[in-house]
């Protein structure tokens, strides 16, 4: 580990801050698509920068990257399996009646 040249950590930090400002500024345009990109697209870029340079995944053994990616893929799989029931309001032969409007209207204790 000690042989490789270190990236300039300050530079990466500066980039992260720039990206942070963009993600905060994005919603001010009030265009949903732009917000989506500035919020989540930039989160992915930030995560990539941190994982690659701060966690040193760029010089770590490849199987570690595969391991972590596999975990993320499992979560996508979970999402794909659960979303048809949890996320939808209706499906094949079932629907969720609108109880929620009432529940939201009643004050919570």
């Amino acid at each position: 580990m000690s042989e490789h040249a270190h990236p300039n950590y300050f530079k990466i930090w500066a980039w992260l801050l720039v990206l942070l400002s963009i993600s905060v500024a994005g919603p001010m345009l009030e265009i949903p698509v732009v917000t989506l990109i500035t919020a989540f697209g930039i989160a992915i870029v930030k995560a990539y920068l941190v994982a690659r340079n701060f966690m040193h995944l760029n010089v770590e053994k490849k199987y570690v990257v595969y391991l972590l990616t596999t975990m993320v893929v499992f979560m996508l799989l979970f999402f794909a399996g659960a979303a048809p029931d949890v996320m939808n309001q209706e499906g094949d032969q079932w629907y969720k009646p609108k109880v929620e409007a009432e529940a939201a209207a009643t004050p919570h204790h």
Partner: protein
Amino acid sequence: MRPIATTRSASGTPTGRLAVWWVIASEIVIFGGLLASYIMFRLSHPEWAEYASHTNTWIGAFNTFVLLTSSLSAVLAHQAAEAGNGKKAAKLLYWTMLGGITFAVVKGFEWNMEISHGFTISSNGFWSFYYTAAGLHALHVIAGVVIMGIVAQTAKQNLELHRVELIGIYWHFVDLVWIFLFPLLYIAK
């Protein structure tokens, strides 16, 4: 005394670091499960956008800034530890801890403010997720700060310097989780 087993490295990755990767792998699925559930609910409840508009983006952004900066000092501590400079590494770890503490204190104020405005954990689904996800993350921050204190203590005496890297990797992961929590809880409105 440390067993010989700990000093072997058949996989090419030092044992401590390997273990940290496995810890992070198991943490990914913990946060992953929680966030996947949140996203499902969020997409099926358009009205949550309205609830989310009561969060304070500026506080969230400030905390993101604090965590990103503390990640920088953590990685610099790792660099110092690699160079064999335990004193410097410890000092940088103290800065990182300060970042973590700042994060937690700001979070405390933020929650206090929100609860006093009536947004409690049982107000509605959004706030339940808001407090649960951020709370789980904050527990990780606090645990990180405590462990970092122990690591810094030994690093100061130039002992167990490899631990500086290990706690650093964990800290970056905590930072990474927040990078996703920030847009999910604050920006998406």
